[in-house]
C-alpha cells in the first residue's frame, strides 16, 4: 500500500443551526493512557502534596464519515438560509473516505521532561482489534481553528473500503471436518456404494453420496465431478464464477 501525504488545510466541525457542534461518529476516543497517568499523579499528590507531572487530559480523536460531512454542509446551508443542491457539495465530501480529527494534548505547564505545547498525537492509523494490521491515511491535513492552525492537530483521511478489509483474516473461521464410511456387513470395502468428499480450500465443504443398485462407483464419480466443477468455478475456468448449490 502506498502512502501519500498532502499538506492541506481543513476546518474542524462547526456548530449547526442549533449551536450544537456536529460531533462525529460515536463517542470521542480519549487517551486512556493519559487518563491513567493523571490518576496516578492525583494519587501521588494526595500522598505527598507535590508533583512534577505535566497537566493535560490526553489527546481526543473524532471520526467523521462522508455522511456526516454532508450533514455539516447542510447545517451550514440551513444557517445561511441557502438551498443546498448536490452541486454545492464538495467532491471530497462524497468520497469514500472517513476523516479523523485528532485533537492533541498540548500541556500548558512545563513538566519534568519540559513538555510545553508538545503534541501527544503524532500519527493516526486504524488498527484491528487484535492489533495485527494497520491502515495508513492517504493524506494528512492541518486543522484550522479560528483562522489559525491548531498546534499539531492531525486530520488524516482514510479510505473506507480498506476498513472493510481490516481484520478479515481475523474473522476467517477454521473448520474441523472428518468423515468415515463403512460397507454393509458381508460386503467388501470395494463394494461400498457410499462415498464422501471433503474440500478444504478456499472454503470448507463436504458431501455424502449414497449410490443405488449396482452403482458402487457412482458416488465416487459424483464426488469427483463436484470437486472438479467447484475448482473450475473458483479458478474462473468455468462459466460459473461462484459455486452455486441452488440448482
Amino acid at each position, binding site marked *: 500500500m502506498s502512502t501519500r501525504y498532502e499538506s492541506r488545510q481543513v476546518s474542524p466541525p462547526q456548530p449547526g443551526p442549533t449551536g450544537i457542534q456536529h460531533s462525529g461518529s460515536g463517542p470521542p476516543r480519549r487517551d486512556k493512557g493519559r487518563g491513567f497517568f493523571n490518576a496516578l499523579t492525583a494519587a501521588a499528590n494526595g500522598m505527598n502534596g507535590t508533583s512534577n507531572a505535566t497537566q493535560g487530559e490526553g489527546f481526543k480523536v473524532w471520526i467523521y464519515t462522508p455522511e456526516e460531512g454532508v450533514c455539516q454542509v447542510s447545517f451550514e446551508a440551513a444557517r445561511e438560509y441557502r438551498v443546498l443542491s448536490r452541486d454545492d457539495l464538495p467532491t471530497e465530501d462524497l468520497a469514500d473516505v472517513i476523516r479523523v480529527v485528532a485533537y492533541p494534548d498540548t500541556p500548558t505547564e512545563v513538566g519534568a521532561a519540559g513538555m510545553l505545547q508538545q503534541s501527544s498525537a503524532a500519527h493516526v492509523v486504524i488498527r484491528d482489534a487484535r492489533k495485527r494490521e494497520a491502515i495508513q491515511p492517504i493524506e494528512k491535513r492541518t486543522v484550522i481553528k479560528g483562522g489559525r492552525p491548531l498546534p499539531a492537530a492531525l486530520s488524516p483521511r482514510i479510505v473506507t473500503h480498506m476498513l472493510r478489509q481490516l481484520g478479515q483474516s481475523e474473522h476467517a473461521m477454521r473448520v474441523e471436518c472428518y468423515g468415515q464410511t463403512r460397507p454393509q456387513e458381508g460386503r467388501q470395502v470395494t463394494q461400498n456404494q457410499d462415498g464422501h468428499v471433503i474440500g478444504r480450500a478456499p472454503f470448507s465443504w463436504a458431501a455424502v453420496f*449414497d*449410490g443405488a443398485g449396482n452403482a458402487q462407483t457412482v458416488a465416487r464419480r459424483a464426488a469427483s465431478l463436484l470437486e472438479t466443477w467447484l475448482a473450475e468455478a473458483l479458478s474462473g475456468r468455468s462459466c460459473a464464477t461462484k459455486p452455486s448449490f441452488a440448482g
Partner: protein
Amino acid sequence: MKRLDSALLGGAQTTVVGATLVGEQAAVFAAGDSRAYLVPSDGRVKLLAERSSKSRLGSGEAHPVVDRVPLQRRDVLVLLSDGAWGPLGLPGIERAVRGAPARHFSEVPQAILDAASRRGCADDMTAVALRLIQ
C-alpha cells in the same frame, strides 16, 4: 446440482447431502434420502433440508433443497447416508455426537457409525462431521 443430475443421467443414481461453510454460515443441500443434522452446542438436534425430494441425482428429476443455517462455534453439522441415520434416529445421533467430546473430534463419525452398527449394519453407511473452531 442440476448439472450433476444431468451428468449422471442414464447411469446409476445417487443421493447427495452436503454443506459449504462460509464465515459462520452453512449452506446445506440435499437430494434423495441422505440427511444433514445440526447438533447445537446447546439445544436440541435439528434435521436440515428436510423438504428435499426423494429423487436422486441421475434421475433427471432431482430438486435439491438448500438450507442456510447460522453456525456457532462448537455446533456440529453431521451429514449421514440412510444406512447411518436410519437405525439411530434423532436421539441416537445426538447421543453419539454429544458423547464424543471426551475424545477427539475426528472420532465423531466413527462414534456415529459404531452406534448405528450396534443396531444392525443393513446398509452401507457414511458419516461426515463438521464444526467451527477458532
